[in-house]
């Protein structure tokens, strides 16, 4: 015979204990975790928003349409979501300490995914982030530029138009797949022209083992829906008439490919020399298009250079490290502005050459990526 009574009693006891615990927790949540409405003052009265307290600053801002770049998804590891919280930030959490310098701590810079909204706050959000939004689009075309660099063209669906400045970047969402349980966001500069505002193009180089690039190279197909947010970044043409020196390597091409076509289309005739570095001829791309622009426009000079050309490359152009090539071509850059885009190693090396040439740091703009 099945012992009915003990089973019923055991089940009742277990249910009673768990239910009463759940009730206690619900009550506690209702009466303890109650911060009510909190006011967030963005950029000294520029935007006043009211949010329900209890969530992180990063999430609360996202809910109000203000997208702060974050690569780790709010786990307090990437430190991209730094913002100045001038009032109401509360004590600094131990999870923030490792990510902030002494200077940043003194300046009230905080890791916004680790700061909860518990009361009214005042914070400073860089102007360009306020215009960033969330977009959906459909992959229109994927083309190979080299053996490990692809061009991704995305047609926007929701919203249908985007406004940005040449040189700015977006954050592409790679959805969860395989061993990656969560979506990740990676930054890519637009290589397209802002005039064509219903499409964006990105130049993506395969990073071995990279979550987002592996997804783009092996899974993403034409017709797939993608999401991204942006635009971000202050790497764009300055408001001056100074001569410009551009230095790029690999997929660092993207912002300059956007800038040069924008300048040509809008008749911005600033003297510009574009140095594009790669290892072998197989790593170069868009050469014909850029040489054509060089021929058509007096103000634009294109200098591709290879650091280690092989014999079969039949390379008659510049050789050597891109930093040496720049040294040979720009004898006096003291009046020029310098724009750098490429791997951290390349940008740092180029930065040292430029410093040696006496160009003041405020006239050097760079876009480093990992």
């Amino acid at each position, binding site marked *: 015979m099945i012992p009915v009574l003990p089973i019923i009693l055991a089940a009742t*006891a277990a249910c009673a204990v768990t239910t009463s615990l*759940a009730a206690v927790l619900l009550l506690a949540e209702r009466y*303890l975790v109650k911060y009510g409405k909190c006011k967030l003052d963005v950029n000294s009265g520029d935007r006043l928003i009211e949010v329900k307290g209890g969530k992180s600053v990063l999430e609360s801002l996202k809910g109000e349409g203000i997208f702060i770049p974050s690569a780790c998804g709010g786990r307090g590891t990437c430190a991209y979501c730094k913002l100045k919280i001038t009032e109401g930030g509360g004590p600094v959490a131990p999870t923030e300490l490792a990510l902030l310098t002494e200077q940043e701590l003194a300046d009230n810079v905080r890791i916004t995914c680790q700061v909860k909204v518990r009361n009214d706050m005042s914070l400073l959000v860089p102007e360009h982030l306020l215009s960033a939004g969330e977009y959906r689009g459909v992959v229109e075309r994927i083309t190979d530029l080299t053996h490990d660099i692809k061009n991704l063209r995305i047609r926007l669906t929701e919203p249908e138009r985007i406004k940005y400045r040449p040189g700015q970047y977006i954050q592409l969402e790679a959805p969860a797949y395989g061993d990656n349980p969560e979506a990740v966001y990676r930054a890519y500069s637009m290589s397209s022209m802002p005039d064509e505002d219903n499409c964006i193009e990105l130049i993506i180089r395969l990073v071995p083992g990279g979550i987002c690039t592996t997804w783009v190279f092996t899974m993403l197909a034409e017709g797939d829906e993608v999401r991204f947010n942006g635009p971000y970044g202050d790497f764009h043409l300055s408001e001056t008439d100074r001569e410009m020196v551009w230095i790029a390597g690999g997929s660092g091409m993207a912002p300059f490919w956007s800038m040069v076509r924008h300048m040509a289309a809008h008749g911005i005739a600033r003297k510009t020399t574009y140095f594009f570095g790669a290892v072998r001829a197989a790593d170069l791309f868009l050469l014909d298009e850029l040489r054509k622009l060089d021929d058509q426009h007096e103000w634009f000079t294109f200098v591709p250079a290879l650091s280690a050309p092989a014999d079969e490359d039949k390379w008659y152009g510049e050789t050597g490290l891109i930093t040496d090539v720049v040294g040979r071509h720009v004898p006096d850059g003291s009046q020029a502005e310098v724009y750098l885009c490429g791997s951290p190693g390349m940008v740092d090396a180029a930065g040292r050459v430029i410093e040696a040439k006496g160009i003041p740091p405020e006239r050097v703009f760079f876009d480093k990526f990992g």
Partner: protein
Amino acid sequence: MTAMFAETAAQLSPSPGLWIVLISAALTDNILLTRFLGMCPFLSISKQLKSAFGMGLAVMVVTGFTCVLNYLLYIYVLLPLTPYGVPAESLKLILFIVVIAGFVQLLEMVIERISLKLYFSLGIFLPLITVNCAILGASLFMVNNVAGKGYDGWDVLVYGFGAGAGWFLAIMLMAGIRHRIAGGKVPAGLQGVGITLIITGIMAMAFTIFQGMIRT
């Protein structure tokens, strides 16, 4: 019913006294070094003294309170049901886990509410120990001690905090040792967890010295 049980237990073996309970829970029966329970946070959080302190304190507080809660649950809910055929021994495992998880959540909310300073030094470790097996282990051993050694409510309170204090002591010792060897040359294959486990083994051997302190 409960009184009857308590009476029988008291007749079997009288409570050994609070000092003995404390010392045996913290030292001779150190939950980490003799049972090897709660190893994951012990290995990962013992890198820095400061975080080890917060973690150890959190484990101590939670072990202490959940032991008492689970004692009440065992004595007043599970034991009275045994005559009707309810298997208290199996049921306690499930219910103890639920009580611990619920208590940790509640404690986190309360601490965050009363003091942000305390929350940042102690509270952020709480979600990490919801499923710390040392805490469940302490509750289960507590039941054995109630039945076998005649622990009463006060003994259980002291036992819970004592077991937590033992864990606290172990992680603080380890954090201190790791701090000292941080600059030393550890062979590549042993760096991090490897050397920590070996040191834990040596510490466990050292702790056997306390075995003679209490006659059981």
